């Protein structure tokens, strides 16, 4: 096989000292600050070609003919592939395989792949792409999700991807007071920094190795192998260095195209999207249209919530069917809601496909239910925090799905912690800290401050009966622990957590994380749904404990004592059990010391408890493993003449179960809040008839250093039963209610009844 030169730089990341609970530094930190960490876009190989993708300029069109001749005539072009060259399944998809590898008869969104080219230089590949002639016959596009269900089908699978109905309690009951609202959420992009990229290398015997930035290498492997028409073991997917993910790397992007080009040309093929292509090359957060009616008693207790939710899934299903179920399950918020009617639907349109993004359906409905809670608070004359505390759910309460919360649910604690933080200083003389920032436009007398709160929650791990697991292998060899686990490290810091877990169990100083690939270890599942610390942390913990147990038995044999006379401690040590007279009193060594030069190895699989599907008619079911909660209080300054918003501070209380690494938890909270702030005030993919108008960081704005608020965070530590170390995933909750809190603060500053995010300046003046 061709040597992949960047590969050795990925190997042998040694984890620094530190156990569970410490702010251990990232083992990949030094190589990342030196620019030596090999991201998937940094890989190269001898004889490497560059791949490029031809994409549809039409939101909906019939393909009449494709002429590849002009492209193939260009010197340096190795090959061109289209749907005709897909040897296996023509379509792929995360849940349902409804998306063509290349469009053959019809294109369904602007940016849909039609062909791919491999050439000796990226510019040559681009010239070849430009030279391909496709004869399209445009079809009127379906771009209004409200029309989708009744419009002619734009896909053989129909325009309704999934409806979810929840019927809970008495549908006829009404409250003393009723508040109505309609709310819209625009299309947010994950906007990871590292573009889709990877390197496919043919193995010379019909198979292929693919290095790629992704969230789940084994699921990629299965989809790629199916499309290539190869057995799974002929396709080896290796994790390339991942420059952020946030849900956008759950679906395949370059994967099949690069492998097809590599197998066709017989040469390694690298693909790396430019930013404009990246905006077309991955799914986005679903735009949502939501109609709500809240019923409550005069004293503020929620009686019933009615919600109708429409998510625009775009042209292909991706994970829409799971996202819409999340939107439905979390539509009523983290409150005791005795009666609920929720109708949620994800529909197909000729807009760009939508799927996973941090928060996964819970973000959109949180904006709606929290806006409703503020509306209700205003109607009742009850302070917003008090109204939420009055209705806050807790352990033992029942969700609208009928599921009783058996784990921790510190909703009130999160909210109290959020609002207990000190408020920031009043707007002052510093021009850079006013709305408009470096534009220096704001007149201090025309700046209004507002404060808002919001609470949100979502599930941890996959739901609705998905039988999820993760595998890890731990080998203790001469004082060094080697860990194999196929987790996609996307920046979240699993590499740090894995080392902490192993050191805590085995008492080793050095933990080496082997590169993640599909050939050497089983699936770790996806780096999504806030699940890896629990699932793969759990697998690494189990495997480490098995190794520790083997070492204890070996030591016991050497000492001639029963194994149970030796104890394994939480510090990775083996000590004498006091009561046993046969045990030499001096036994107090680390597991690693006790192992000596003997090699011990164990493989373990971690599963969570099984869940159930939702009933199709009533939406009832024990669908979730666990829940995580967070509350946010936002402070904003608004220039009421220009409509400019500066988010000054976001304070949060977050339910984390147990903090395994304080520095990394802080990083997740601050980073997640920044994405929530982005959705609140700036981030939106603007579409005209299905065309993305702003596929660049010039026009799609994400928060800069100057936009990011001060963050004050308090972690609520209530260990979660069933979770390794009691730790909950922490990645998603910061993104769920921070958006709603910022909008509440904007309403409080301006008095404008904002009902759509992102809030634009023209909404406020």
């Amino acid at each position, binding site marked *: 096989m061709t040597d992949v030169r960047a590969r050795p730089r990925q190997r042998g990341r040694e984890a620094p000292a530190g156990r569970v609970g410490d702010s251990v530094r990232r083992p990949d930190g030094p190589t990342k600050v030196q620019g030596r960490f090999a991201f998937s876009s940094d890989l190269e190989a001898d004889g490497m070609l560059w791949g490029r993708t031809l994409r549809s300029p039409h939101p909906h069109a019939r393909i009449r003919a494709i002429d590849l001749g002009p492209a193939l005539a260009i010197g340096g072009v190795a090959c061109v592939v289209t749907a005709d060259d897909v040897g296996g399944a023509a379509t792929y998809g995360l849940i349902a395989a409804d998306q063509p590898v290349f469009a053959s008869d019809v294109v369904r969104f602007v940016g849909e792949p039609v062909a791919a080219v491999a050439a000796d230089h990226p510019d040559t590949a681009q010239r070849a792409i430009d030279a391909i002639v496709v004869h399209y016959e445009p079809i009127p596009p379906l771009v209004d999700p409200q029309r989708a269900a009744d419009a002619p089908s734009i896909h053989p699978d129909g325009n309704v991807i999934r409806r979810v109905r929840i019927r809970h309690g008495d549908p006829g009951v009404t409250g003393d007071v009723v508040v109505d609202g309609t709310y819209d959420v625009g299309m947010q992009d994950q906007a990871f920094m590292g573009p889709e990229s990877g390197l496919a290398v043919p193995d010379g015997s019909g198979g292929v190795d693919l290095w790629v930035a992704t969230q789940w290498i084994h699921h990629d492997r299965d989809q790629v192998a199916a499309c290539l028409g190869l057995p799974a073991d002929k396709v080896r997917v290796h994790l390339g260095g991942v420059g952020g993910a946030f849900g956008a790397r759950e679906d395949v992007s370059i994967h099949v195209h690069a492998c097809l080009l590599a197998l066709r040309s017989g040469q390694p093929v690298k693909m790396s999207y430019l930013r404009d292509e990246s905006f077309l090359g991955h799914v986005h957060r679903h735009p949502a249209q939501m109609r709500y009616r809240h019923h409550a008693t005069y004293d503020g207790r929620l009686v019933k919530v009615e919600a109708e939710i429409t998510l625009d899934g775009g042209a292909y299903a991706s994970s829409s069917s799971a996202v819409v179920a999340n939107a439905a399950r979390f539509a009523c918020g983290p409150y005791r809601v005795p009666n609920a009617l929720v109708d949620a639907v994800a529909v197909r349109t000729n807009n760009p496909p939508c799927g996973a993004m941090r928060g996964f359906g819970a973000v959109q409905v949180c904006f709606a239910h929290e806006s409703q809670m503020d509306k209700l608070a205003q109607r009742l004359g009850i302070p917003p925090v008090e109204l939420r505390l009055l209705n806050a759910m807790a352990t033992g309460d029942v969700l609208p799905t009928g599921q009783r919360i058996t784990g921790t649910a510190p909703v009130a604690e999160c909210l109290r912690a959020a609002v207990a933080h000190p408020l920031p200083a009043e707007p002052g003389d510093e021009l850079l800290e006013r709305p408009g920032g470096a534009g220096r436009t704001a007149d201090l007398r025309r700046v209004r401050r507002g404060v808002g709160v919001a609470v949100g929650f979502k599930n941890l791990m996959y739901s609705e009966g998905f039988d999820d697991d993760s595998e890890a292998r731990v080998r203790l060899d001469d004082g060094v622990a080697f860990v194999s686990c196929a987790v996609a490290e996307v920046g979240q810091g699993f590499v740090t957590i894995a080392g902490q877990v192993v050191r805590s169990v085995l008492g080793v100083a050095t933990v080496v994380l082997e590169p993640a690939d599909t050939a050497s270890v089983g699936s770790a599942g996806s780096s999504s749904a806030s699940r890896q610390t629990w699932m793969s942390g759990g697998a690494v913990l189990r495997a480490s404990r098995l190794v520790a147990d083997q070492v204890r038995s070996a030591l016991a044999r050497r000492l001639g004592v029963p194994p149970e006379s030796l104890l394994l401690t939480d510090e990775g040590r083996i000590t004498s059990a006091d009561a046993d007279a046969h045990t030499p009193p001096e036994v107090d060594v680390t597991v690693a010391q006790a192992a000596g030069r003997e090699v011990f190895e164990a493989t373990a699989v971690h599963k969570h408890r099984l869940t159930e599907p939702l009933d199709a008619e009533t939406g009832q079911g024990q669908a979730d493993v666990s829940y995580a909660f967070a509350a946010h209080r936002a402070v904003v300054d608004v220039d009421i003449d220009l409509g400019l918003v500066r988010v000054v501070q976001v304070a949060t209380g977050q339910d984390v179960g147990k903090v395994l690494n304080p520095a990394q938890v802080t990083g997740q909270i601050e980073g997640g809040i920044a994405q929530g702030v982005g959705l609140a005030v700036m981030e939106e993919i603007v579409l005209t008839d299905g065309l993305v108008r702003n596929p660049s960081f010039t026009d799609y704005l994400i928060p*800069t*250093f*100057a936009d990011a608020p001060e963050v004050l965070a308090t972690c609520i530590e209530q260990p979660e039963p069933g979770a390794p170390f009691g730790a909950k995933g922490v990645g998603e909750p910061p993104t769920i209610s921070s958006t709603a809190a910022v909008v509440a603060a904007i309403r409080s500053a301006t008095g404008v009844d904002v009902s759509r995010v992102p809030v634009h300046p023209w909404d406020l003046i």
Partner: protein
Amino acid sequence: MVRVVRAEAYELVVNGVVRRVDGALETESLLRVLRDRLGLPGAKNACEQGECGSCSVLVDGVLVCSCLELAAAAAGCEVTTIEGFAPEGASAGAEPSDALLTDVQQAMVDAGGVQCGFCTPGFVVAIHDLLDRVPRPTGPEVREALAGNLCRCTGYGRILAAVEQVVSVRTAGPAT
């Protein structure tokens, strides 16, 4: 249609070493030449539109987005990439290790300013540049100066902490 014009061979002085560039297209950016022809992938390709700062390098001491510079136009210039940053006294070409991190690099690791790391090389270059020009920036000055470097993971809080850590150590040093 993209025009293909080969540039005449030219030389760049990269991290103190003269590097000959032969056979490149005239249109290739400094970023492309560094990454694809000179084996220096430390400068990153997050946007290639001059919006994100991930490709930050110094050209004759000036902080630039290397994606916006034509490589051929930088012929003869001194280019400093992330690969050229090492603490004073470290020998050039030595195998990089933890011990060879600059104070900014070490602070980024210690403070948790690194997650996925794709923006990190650009931030390290930009922070060094800022603190060379403005040794004791205020918080708002840091935030504005680094607003050209996008990060999607951290929310910037730990990067700010890293900058503050460097400023605090440097200003407490014997030289000041």
